[in-house]
């Protein structure tokens, strides 16, 4: 197939994925996420477990080592069918603690220790980099297979260039859809939907190739089985150690791979999806593995000697002339590689950004001059850079390793690396005694052994470790040889590293935990994680107490009637913070139940019954239930009557409450209306009186001018009042259109002081400020904020009764808030009216007649509420003092 057509097909495919991601994202934003949250989509998104290593590599693995490849899929199968143990708990914890990555999980569990977050991040990045390189390699190789023997079209560019383009394209896609928003729970609907589509493509592709091989090339099932036994694969030898070890390590990896944690826990929208995935994901894995052996067997028999079994999925259809099938297979492999890389990049970038870049930045910033902190922008930027960096690392690794065969084994090496997180994770969710010292010791021990015994030697002799060191140990110390630690020889290197790293990791974790003491935060988190399902009682006592509660319910139903008993139990369970029908049989609950039952059967009987069930006396439960059955019939009739009268009483109560509320509202409204009436009529009275005077009489010119002036002033007062009223009404209904902009607080204060100087301009008025504290950007409606400041400053000019009036303005930054205090040196506001000044028309003794209708502070209060801040009177400052608080950044 010509290379240019291949490129066109790939690009079209990527464009479709873009479209899918875009539409899904749109729908999710529009709240129409309905089908995005299907359990099917969740299950399919898990399929990123099957990377190109599965798609191409499983066949190669089977050709080399027989059925051993199955362990990679059987391990996860066991984890998923056992979902009730670990997955359910992880997902619940992830939800309750808003976990963003596996590093976050570990860090959060161990007292939010960022050090652990960094360790896990480093392990994850180191383990994933070669894996990403492997994906780039597979895409590059598959391009090569297609375009190798076609003279027409473009020439195949060199493999490095292909890998570079693929890496760049994936980085772009991931940044576009992976860092669009900074949601608290880090869900990416677009990406999940796109990888679900890719999951379908790769499954269909592999199944199609399989069906073609079994029925197209071979002669059906029986023939294939015969061929299997006749092929070289039949000579494989099951190595018990590897079989068990690989099953274990793949089971561990599915829990600890950052990308799996991302789709399994972080992207999980609904716990019930885990229940579906418990069978559907194993089914997916089974289908992906189903035709691996047949393809390997057929490939080995029909393909020429020495051809790469890792590419049989492509080369078999090509050799049989099935070009379209081969293209489908190519897309399947492409999907496997891209979806893995995308999710891995997101997961890793979240970890790098949250645990390394952001803390570092915050730490550096403390020392430097104060800078406005747009952390959100910083985090997004660091995510984007991290994604690019992760892909660049993968590409660099690919480039340096030269696409060598050494990459083929990197999948398992990577699995063993991430499995080092397992002891800290499992200990963290099942053992309250696990401490961060233990976790750190375990993680570092395991990580070091993995590095030394497996990762570094994987670069081959004289790669990163010298051949001599590998053969003879460092400084010739025999028992430190990377492949024969402590003199254990004869194990294969992978198993050797797995055994020692997991043993010593777990050992260090346990010893560290037992010998250290957890901090308070850590203990809190420990309880929250371990007892996630039941905060009040430990898992051990749960079954017993639930059984008791069930017996109590069964008895109560006979006495109270099924419906009422269930309602009572449910209400009690809710009050205890539990869901479902069965509350914990705490002494408190039992006492309430007893009271409830006593209402039906009398206190003594009720006490006896409860004692029977919770204490265990000689009367049998059967006897009690029989007694209860008789009592029930008598109860039933009277209960019906009671229910009716209670219904009536309830309705009456509801009506009474509604009425009281209405009356109260009406009183408030009357008060307000009569206030408005007064405030409107007062200026109108002057206007009317003086206009009549002007109309009737011949006045001297100076009086005419004076009265006209009064009319003019009063008209303006009236207008101002109406403006204020409208303003207030809009603000109170929160319908105000905020005009968010950014400005320096210092400049706003400057403007306010200038504008307020119109008020009693004749007055000597000193404003004391500390300009250095005022320089900070505020994102808010600056005009509205200015209005508040003008009002407060004008009030000070108006009412400050000191001889030499001084207004002090103090600005402080408190968390994400600015706090601006306005303190004058007047006599302040009497204590009894301090609470009233923010009410409408609360003008105090307005002897100075400064205009305004007493709405100013009420408007200020509403404005600040609209801006997400507050204004309050600050008592005890010597004069009148107002404190304005406002968020530095108004969240829209």
């Amino acid at each position, binding site marked *: 197939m010509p290379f240019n057509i291949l490129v066109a097909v790939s690009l079209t495919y990527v464009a479709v994925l873009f479209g899918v991601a875009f539409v899904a994202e749109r729908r999710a934003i529009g709240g129409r996420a309905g089908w995005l949250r299907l359990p099917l989509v969740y299950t399919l998104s898990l399929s990123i477990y099957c990377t190109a290593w599965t798609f191409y590599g499983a066949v190669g693995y089977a050709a080399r080592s*027989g*059925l051993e490849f*199955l362990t990679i899929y*059987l391990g996860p*199968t*066991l984890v*998923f*069918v*056992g*979902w009730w143990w670990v997955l359910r708990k992880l997902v*619940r914890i992830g*939800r*309750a603690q808003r976990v963003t990555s596996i590093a976050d999980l570990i860090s959060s569990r161990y007292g939010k220790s960022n050090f652990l977050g960094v360790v896990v991040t480093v392990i994850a990045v180191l383990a994933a980099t070669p894996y990403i390189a492997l994906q780039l390699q597979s895409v590059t190789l598959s391009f090569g297979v297609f375009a190798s023997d076609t003279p027409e079209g473009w020439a195949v560019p060199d493999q490095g260039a292909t890998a570079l383009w693929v890496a760049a394209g994936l980085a772009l896609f991931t940044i576009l859809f992976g860092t669009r928003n900074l949601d608290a729970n880090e869900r990416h609907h677009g990406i999940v939907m796109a990888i679900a589509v890719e999951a379908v493509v790769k499954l269909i592709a592999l199944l199609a190739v399989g069906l073609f091989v079994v029925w197209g090339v071979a002669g059906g099932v029986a023939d294939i*089985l015969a061929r*299997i*036994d*006749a092929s070289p694969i*039949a*000579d*494989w030898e*099951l190595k*018990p150690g590897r*079989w068990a070890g690989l*099953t274990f390590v793949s089971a561990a990896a599915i829990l600890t791979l950052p990308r799996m944690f991302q789709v399994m826990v972080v992207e999980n929208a609904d716990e*019930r999806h885990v*229940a579906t995935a*418990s*069978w559907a994901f*194993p*089914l997916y894995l*089974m289908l992906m593995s*189903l035709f691996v*052996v047949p393809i390997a067997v057929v490939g080995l028999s029909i393909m020429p000697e020495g051809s790469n079994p890792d590419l049989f999925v492509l080369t078999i259809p090509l050799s049989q002339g099935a070009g379209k099938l081969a293209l489908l297979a190519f897309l399947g492999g492409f999907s496997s590689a891209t979806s893995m890389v995308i999710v891995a990049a997101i997961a890793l970038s979240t970890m790098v950004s949250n645990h390394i870049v952001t803390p570092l930045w915050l730490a550096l910033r403390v020392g430097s001059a104060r800078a406005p902190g747009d952390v959100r922008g910083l985090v997004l930027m660091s995510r984007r850079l991290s994604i690019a960096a992760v892909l660049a690392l993968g590409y660099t690794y690919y480039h340096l390793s030269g696409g060598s065969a050494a990459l083929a084994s990197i999948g398992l090496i990577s699995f063993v690396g991430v499995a080092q997180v397992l002891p800290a994770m499992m200990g963290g969710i099942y053992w309250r005694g696990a401490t961060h010292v233990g976790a750190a010791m375990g993680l570092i021990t395991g990580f070091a052994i993995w590095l030394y015994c497996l990762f570094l030697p994987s670069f081959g002799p004289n790669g990163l470790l010298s051949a001599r060191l590998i053969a003879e140990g460092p400084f010739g110390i025999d028992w430190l040889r990377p492949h024969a630690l402590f003199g254990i020889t004869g194990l294969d290197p992978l198993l050797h590293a797995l055994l020692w790293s997991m043993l010593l990791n777990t050992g260090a974790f346990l010893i560290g935990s037992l010998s250290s003491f957890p901090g308070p935060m850590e203990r809190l988190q420990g309880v929250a994680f371990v007892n996630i*399902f039941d905060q009040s009682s430990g898992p051990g006592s749960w*079954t017993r107490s639930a059984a008791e509660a*069930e017996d109590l*319910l*069964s008895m109560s*139903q006979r006495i*109270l009637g*099924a419906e*009422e*008993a269930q*309602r*009572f139990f*449910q*209400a*009690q369970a*809710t*009050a205890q913070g539990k*869901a*479902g*029908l069965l509350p914990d049989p705490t002494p408190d609950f039992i006492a*309430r139940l007893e009271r*409830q039952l006593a209402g039906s059967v009398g206190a003594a009987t009720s006490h006896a019954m409860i004692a029977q069930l919770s204490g265990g006396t000689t009367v049998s439960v059967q006897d009690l239930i029989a007694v209860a059955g008789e009592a*029930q019939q008598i109860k*039933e009739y009277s209960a019906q009557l*009671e229910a009716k009268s*209670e219904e009536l009483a*309830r309705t009456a109560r509801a009506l009474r409450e509604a009425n009281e509320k209405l009356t109260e509202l009406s009183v408030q409204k009357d008060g307000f209306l009569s206030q408005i009436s007064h405030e409107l009529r007062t200026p109108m009275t002057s206007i009317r009186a003086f206009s009549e005077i002007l109309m009737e009489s011949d006045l001297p010119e100076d009086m005419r001018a004076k009265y006209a002036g009064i009319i003019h002033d009063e008209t303006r007062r009236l207008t101002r009042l109406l403006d204020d009223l409208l303003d207030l009404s809009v603000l109170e209904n929160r319908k105000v259109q905020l005009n968010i902009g950014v400005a320096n607080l210092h400049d706003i204060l400057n403007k306010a002081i200038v504008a307020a100087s119109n008020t009693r301009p004749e007055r000597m008025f000193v404003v004391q400020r500390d300009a250095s504290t005022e320089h900070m950007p505020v994102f808010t409606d600056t005009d509205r904020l200015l209005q508040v400041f003008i009002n407060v400053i004008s009030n000070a000019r108006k009412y400050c009764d000191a001889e030499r009036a001084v207004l002090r303005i103090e600005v402080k930054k408190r968390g994400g808030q600015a706090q601006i205090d306005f303190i004058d040196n007047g006599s302040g506001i009497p204590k009894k009216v301090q609470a009233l000044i923010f009410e409408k028309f609360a003008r105090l003794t307005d002897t100075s007649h400064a205009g305004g209708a007493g709405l100013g502070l009420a408007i200020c209060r509403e404005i600040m509420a609209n801006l997400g801040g507050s204004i309050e009177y600050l008592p005890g400052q010597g004069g009148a003092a107002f404190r304005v608080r406002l968020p530095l950044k108004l969240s829209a």
Partner: protein
Amino acid sequence: MPQTQPLFLARRSYRRRRMMDAVRLLPFFGTVLLLLPLLWRPAETPEPDTARGVIYLFTTWVVLIIAALVLSRGLAPGLLDAEEPVSPGPETEPHNGAG
């Protein structure tokens, strides 16, 4: 039929509890089945039996999938009411259930 309902409820929750036991046991059952091949000696038997191995492993796999399917069907609906709300639900009156 006020007498039958409580019995039915008790039975249903009893079944649910046993299903929880089953789903907890399933991975151990699966582990045993999947580790059984360790006892085989494929290289030592005279006839090739890799095909039988394939059939055994895939059959076990399917059995595990079906078991998980049945159990998750039984447990999933309960998952919503029994354990869904991480925070307590809307307030109901703590006692006086009829009120």
